[in-house]
Structure formats: structure tokens, C-alpha cells
């Protein structure tokens, strides 16, 4: 049983800026534990001869030439923004962080 506590979930919720009720925290702690248990079973299968991987394809060193390519226009860049001003993305004030 992978242990994920209610506090762990509360911490993650805070990091993700998601306001959650106590009932939701309890519920998610249980659900996430089940998910982690399922994933943990992979470790039982993978022996010491299987290296940890972060990428499905064994490829290294894919690089790009240092060449400038056309960018989007300012209008196109901002076209998906909920709000804009002075050619910039307009976002709500950010509190307590710099």
C-alpha cells in the first residue's frame, strides 16, 4: 500500500492553487493511493537489469542549428489571450509571490 496522506494531497493542492474541501482531500488521498499502488506494481516486474527511463525511445543529442526562424506576429501571439493591453498579455495581480 503506497502511503499518500491527506497532508500530501493538501500540499499538492496548494502548489497547484486548487482550493479543496476536507471531504475532497480525503477522497483524493484514497484515490491517489490506489493509483500509486497500481503503478508500483511495475517495479515488481522491472528487475535490476532494467534501467529507469524517462523516454520511450532511446535517442540522444537531437539538436537544432542556431538559425532564426519567423515568429508569430504580435496579433497572432495574443490571439488566444483572455485579456491583453499594450501588446502584452494581461494577467491578474499575483499576490504573495515574486
Amino acid at each position, binding site marked *: 500500500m503506497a502511503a499518500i496522506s491527506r497532508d500530501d494531497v493538501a500540499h499538492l493542492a496548494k502548489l497547484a492553487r486548487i482550493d479543496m474541501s476536507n471531504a475532497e482531500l480525503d477522497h483524493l488521498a484514497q484515490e491517489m493511493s490506489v493509483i500509486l499502488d497500481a503503478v508500483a506494481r511495475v517495479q515488481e516486474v522491472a528487475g535490476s537489469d532494467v534501467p529507469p527511463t524517462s*523516454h520511450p525511445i532511446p535517442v540522444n*543529442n537531437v539538436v*537544432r542549428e*542556431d*538559425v532564426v526562424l519567423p515568429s508569430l506576429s504580435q496579433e497572432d501571439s495574443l490571439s488566444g489571450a483572455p485579456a491583453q493591453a499594450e501588446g*502584452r498579455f*494581461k494577467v491578474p*495581480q499575483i499576490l504573495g509571490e*515574486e
Partner: protein
Amino acid sequence: MALNYDQAVAKYDPTLGLEVHVELNTNSKMFCGCSTEFGAEPNTQTCPVCLGLPGALPVVNGKAIESSILIGLALNCSIAPFSRFARKNYFYPDMPKNFQTSQYDEPICVNGYLDVEIETEDGPKQFRVEIERVHMEEDTGKSLHVGGATGRIHGAEYSLLDYNRAGIPLVEIVTKIVGGTGKYAPEVARAYVTELRDILRSLGVSDVKMEQGSMRCDVNLSLAPIGSGSLGTRSETKNVNSLRSVERAVIGEVIRQANRLEAGERIVQETRHFLEESGQTRPGRSKEQAEDYRYFPEPDLVPVVPDSAWIEELRATLPEKPSNRRKRLQIEWSVPDKEMSSLVNAGLLDVVEETIKLGAEPTRARSWWLGEISRLANEREVDPTSLITPGQVAVVISLIESGELTDKLARQVVEGVVAGEGTPADVITKRGLKVVSDDGALMTAIEAAIAAQPDTALRVRGGNIPAAGALIGAVMKATGGQADAAKVRELLLKHLGQGE
């Protein structure tokens, strides 16, 4: 009684840690082909990749990897045979992706060092600053906080974001703990950042302009009672954007922390901001709660596995170490220590060397760059090297040496070149700046001066040589300052029977 700096370091031992961020000078961004050129209209150098639009895939700029390896090699680091990118997740709109692509536990370069020299009461002393890591990441966008009184976040109603800078290749160079500096911590910090800047400049990988933000320094500092053998709680001072500020930030934090400790208060682990005007710091974000960036390997980028033959090729291209170069040039040019530091601090070493290579005499080359040209640059608040080329300075100096220009005329020529009137030759022609060395023309002016001041002339004839000054002055005035004063003197004295 508040402790001053000397009293503070008499009781407490400072420990430093320095993090330097350097924007690389690649043409395109770290993970996309958007231009990195400074000063464009907001959000005109952005694309689906650096805006973090769904489905967009990053590809690493090969030149940025090369530059990072060069930096690591120049700092005596080991180059990691296998290195990966990671996502640093945080909630702040300066990255539209909501994470910064960085490196975490697998940086490209590790375990290096940089030796720096500082002046102590016992003469020059060398300190070894150990390097923990050099890693690759990307710069963030620029925020404009609107509605707050000071442009700061607190009180702002909303923020405006320009993502042109988001994704510009950034290299972070992190030192290990620097201890054992004692009271010289400010000097060591400054010497380290200075030497690092010079190395990066010599590698040609960055513009390293601290004032413009292409090189930025964060200063970590903690104090512990002398002899305690322990480490205190550290503060991290950001926004330190000049070499002088690095030194001042260390001094300011030593004093602040020592006085807190004296008063029995504890040091809060926090980010502080350096205030350029006062040299003090103000509190920013508290780091009491350990940061949690939920780093994880970047799934959209593949690992960097540099070929060892390539690393050796790059190692072979490393330029002469700036400290060695400075010592060599100082001897070659026989420059006093103080003037040498002025040249280095003003960033004029390259242009002076170039000017001398083009045939100028070293002393003249130095004094023109440090003197007149720097003065004109200060007036305009620009870099001296942007005003005139080493070739043009060499031409002006050669014209002084051949007697075709006086120092005074040469200043006018330089001023003309700086004002955009063309090459030195163009300025000389346009302004008619030629030394009048034609004996006939000079004699006419001399005779006129004698006729105007017959009494003075008589005194000179009688052996009162200093009296000739008034006559020489009159000739210089009559020729609009273009006469060669030494020549005028020679001709005049000869004419009045006082020449050899």
C-alpha cells in the same frame, strides 16, 4: 549600538554562495527559432513553442550546448557524459508554459573551480572558488506591474507580460559554499564575478552586460560566530546587477545579519532584493517553507550525451585565461597596476590591444581610450567601444606622431568621428583640421604677432625667453589652434635671435 562592518566581521565569519545567470548570445532561442535580439516590440519574438501552446515541441539549440560546455571547460568542470533537462514547475506568469525548462539532478557540467586574486593587507592573495555546477535553462518573460506605486508587485492591479525574452538560453553557474574568506568576503565575491565575466567575454558566449541584465548575480550569505565551526541561516539577495553591487550587497547583508544576531533575533531564510541606492536589501519571498518545484525529467527533450572527442575539440579552442592575458599585456605595455584595473573594469582591454596591434604606441592608445573617448562615451551614456573603432583611433594616433595633428586637433577629429562625420580623414577634410606646419604661413603669423606686440618682442630679443609665450599664444590664436606650437616656438625664437 549598531555594529559596523569591521565590528561585524570581528565577531562573525561570513560564508558565501554565488549564483550567476548568464544569457547566451545565440541568434535564436533555447528551444525554438525565435530571435533573441533585444529591443523588439513586445511579443513579436514568440512562437507556439516559447508561448507553451498545446502540442508544440521544443528542440535544443546546439550552439547553446556548445557554449555551455565551453563555459564548463573554462571553469575546470567535468562535462557530464549524460545530461538531461527537467521541468521546474511554479505558479508565476513569467513563463507561459507554467514551468521553466531547466536542469535538475543531471546538469551538463559539475565540480569546477575558479581562482581569483584579491588585494589584502598582506599583499595579493589567491582564493579558490569551487564550482558546484553549470546548468542550462531558459530565461523568463518580462513582467510589467501596473497600478502599484513603485512598479512592484504589491499593490499592483494587474501585470502585463512580454514573452520575447522567454526561452532565451540561460546558463546558471553555482558555486559551492565559499568559506574562509573572513573579512574579505565582499572582495572575493566581486573578484569572482569579475573574473567570471572576463572568462565569459573571452569565450564570446555572452554579452555579459550586468547593467542590461545579460549577466545577473544572486548572493547567498550566512554568518556564524567565529570559531563555532557551524553554518548560519542564509539569505539570498537577488537583483545584484553590477560588480560594485556584488561587493555592496555582501557588506550590507553582513551588517544586517550581524545586528540581528547581536539583538538575539534569528535570521529568516528568505529572498531579499538589493537596493541600488542605499546598498541595503529589502525582504522578498520567504523561503521558510522549503521550495517545491516538483522537478521531473522533461519528456519532450532527449538527453544530451556529448561525444568525448567533441569535448576535446572544444577544449583545444579555449582562449588564453583572462588573468594570464592581463598579466602578459600589463608587462608588454608596461602599465601601472591602477591603470590596468581601470582598463579592465571599463572593458577596454580588447580595443586597446587592437589599437596597439594596428601600430599605435601603447601609452597613447591607452590614454585615448581611457581619456577622451571614455569621456565622450560617459556624456552620451554609451559604451566607448560603440563610438569609434580601434582602426580609427590608430589612424588619429599615427597622425599625432607624424606631426600632422596636435593633441588639440586630434580631439576635434575624434569628436567628429563620434558625431558621425565619417572617418578621421573625412573629419580632417570637412573641418579643415590640418596642422599649419608650412614655414611661410607660420612666419606671416609670427611677424604679425611681433608687429602687434613690439615691446614683448623686444624683451625676448633681450633674452627674456618666457616672454615669448604671449607671442606664441597670439600665433596659435591667429591660426585657429592649428599650428604646431613647438614649431612656432622654434621659428619665433630663431627670428628674434634666440634660437640655437
